[in-house]
């Protein structure tokens, strides 16, 4: 049953994203930037999905430290890994946009640097998990590391409000910019597609953590014999 739900959600996500690609292709070009502006329809929803993943990882890590229940640890690692993939997509699409608009692939601007640091921190979280053998110690250290890594997320989000950056000013939830209503609908619809995809990926990754625990218990049983 769980597998069927995942297949349906996955197919729905792919359908929504494929339909949106068609809709995005039909939208008019932005006056100043031209066609490359349309990268925003992937760049921004990927960032929002990564933020949702980071908030979920934080919640799961806090819950693990409170309850010592390993299901929260499994959820934290699953959602962190998925969030990392979406943040990578966000960084790469941003870099391609920058090459056309700024003429450079990368600049050490506060928004870009803090986002890269965020990616490195969560990659470090996954590496830390590989480095510790003992499950309780691994989960506890990883949860503390995840909470500390989250401190960078508000810096990434608010950097374009707090500092003068090369990165464009916010056009959503802000009085500075404006985004046409029909474009906002496409953007939100693309976010929905990416969120569905992230949910499916997280559920699959979570199942793999359960399988890993089953393997660990089978190994213990084999050693005991």
């Amino acid at each position, binding site marked *: 049953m769980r597998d069927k739900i995942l297949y349906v959600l996955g197919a729905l996500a792919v359908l929504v994203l494929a339909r949106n*690609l068609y809709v995005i292709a039909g939208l008019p070009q932005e006056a100043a*930037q*031209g*066609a*490359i502006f*349309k*990268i925003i329809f*992937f*760049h921004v929803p*990927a960032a929002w999905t990564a933020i949702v993943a980071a908030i979920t990882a934080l919640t799961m890590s806090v819950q693990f430290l409170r309850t010592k229940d390993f299901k929260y640890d499994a959820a934290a690692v699953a959602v962190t890994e*998925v969030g990392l*993939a*979406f943040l*990578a*997509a966000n960084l*790469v*699409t941003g870099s*391609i*946009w920058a*090459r*056309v608009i700024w003429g450079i692939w990368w600049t050490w601007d506060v928004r870009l640097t803090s986002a890269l640091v965020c990616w490195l921190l969560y990659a470090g979280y996954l590496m830390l998990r590989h480095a510790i053998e003992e499950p309780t110690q691994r989960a506890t250290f990883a949860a503390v590391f995840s909470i500390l890594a989250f401190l960078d997320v508000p810096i990434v989000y608010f950097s374009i409000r707090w500092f003068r950056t090369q990165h464009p000013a916010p056009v959503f939830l802000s009085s500075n910019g404006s985004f046409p209503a029909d474009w906002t609908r496409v953007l939100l619809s693309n976010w929905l597609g990416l969120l569905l*995809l992230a949910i499916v*990926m997280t559920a*699959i*990754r979570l*199942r*793999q953590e359960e*399988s*890993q625990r*089953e*393997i660990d218990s*089978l*190994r213990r*049983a*084999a050693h005991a*014999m």
Partner: protein
Amino acid sequence: MHLLAQTLLVAQASPEDIVQELARLQRNFHFLSYGFAAAWIILTLYVLMLVGRERKLKRQITNLKAMLEERQKK
């Protein structure tokens, strides 16, 4: 009105300007397609990674279960 303004602009532009503008538009489209392709490739690679890991875990579970059954028989 917008079409008229554009027509007048094109009429004033030199052939070099038009060629340059067309090249800029083409480059813009190329980079947009690179952007979308890169994002899809990253997500597809991650999905393939998940599929590979799933297979490996299933194989490990099957092997361990078979090994335990064999030991129990002995």
